[in-house]
């Protein structure tokens, strides 16, 4: 038995996908054991994402790669651009109410992430949440100077899940 932290982002709430998305987890047999609508502060939003250069550079490189796939060159410093992306992400997830929740069940971290699918909507499989409900891309988001919309956040590991659950639900 394992617990996974889930956060439905402002675009999911505004697009009225709360029931659809939580219904998918329930249908699979996971139990929703905590749930709350709240407005994140910028600090809370920032605390959900890493703060190290390695992660920033990886983000920056992803954007460069997305431009490359469109035959364009994106001339920025990966580290600096990665930091900029984090600012956009913080802006995005604090732009309206979100729903934080805990899903509990066998291998919850693995299964929740499988149901959600890839952060890149272009490769997310149909049948996954992102594959079915997103058409945003890193390329377009970057052009529009905003974060790539991903609908939902789920912790990457059991350790992170427990950390994020503590952050929002105490224990």
């Amino acid at each position, binding site marked *: 038995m394992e617990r996974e932290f889930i956060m439905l982002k402002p675009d999911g*709430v505004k697009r*009225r996908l*709360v*029931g659809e998305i*939580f219904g998918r987890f329930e249908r699979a047999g996971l139990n929703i054991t905590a749930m*709350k609508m709240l407005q994140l502060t910028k600090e809370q939003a920032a605390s959900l994402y890493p703060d190290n250069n390695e992660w920033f550079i990886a983000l920056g490189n992803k954007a460069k790669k997305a431009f490359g796939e469109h035959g364009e060159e994106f001339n920025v410093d990966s580290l600096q651009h990665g930091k900029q992306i984090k600012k956009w992400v913080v802006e995005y997830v604090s732009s309206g109410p979100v729903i934080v929740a805990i899903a509990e069940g066998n291998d919850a971290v693995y299964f929740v992430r499988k149901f959600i699918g890839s952060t890149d909507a272009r490769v997310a499989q149909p049948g996954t949440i992102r594959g079915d409900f997103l058409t945003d891309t890193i390329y377009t988001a970057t052009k529009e100077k905003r974060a790539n919309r991903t609908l939902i956040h789920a912790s990457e590991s059991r350790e992170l899940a427990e950390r994020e659950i503590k952050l929002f639900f105490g224990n």
Partner: protein
Amino acid sequence: MGVFMERTLVLVKPDGVARGLIGEVIKRFELSGLKIVGMKMVRATEDLASRHYPSSDEWFRKAGQRSIETFKAQSIDINKRFGTTDPISIGRIIKSWLVKFITSGEVVAMVLEGNRAIDNVRRLIGETDPLKALPGTIRGDFSIDNVILGNSLSRPMVNVVHASGDKKEAENEIGTWFEKSELYDYNTGADDVFYKEW
């Protein structure tokens, strides 16, 4: 403008939560155009639950009378079940069942907002007694319970959801379950579809 912007309280009751129907229920409200402006899963205390259900003789009498009529229609002796034929006493027993049931597990409390939210929500959830609720409504689709079965097991009907009955009830219930700071104002594309002047 003919918009009657209202807020109403909905609970997915312990039976709905245990049966994994939270998402399905929320989805129906969202698809109708209603907006969730507050939501949380809670384990209600006995105090919260008894404030949620009214404690007036008028309410007890109505609740008791409803059971008396149902039992009469089925030719079942109500005295045998409740040990009394007084509507108010029966109403009190029913309230104690309701409180016991709603505190028996987690519920999802939410505040929904929209044009005539109170009546629209009641339309979507259907009749209180699932046996009478039409298919296509939440209670009609997701419960096979009825009054007689519930009463014979000393419990209220398991009908998945609760929703405020009128404006005054909505105001009281929202205040019972939510702090003002837990309710959010935000705009969505669907708001324009319903409320923007053409």
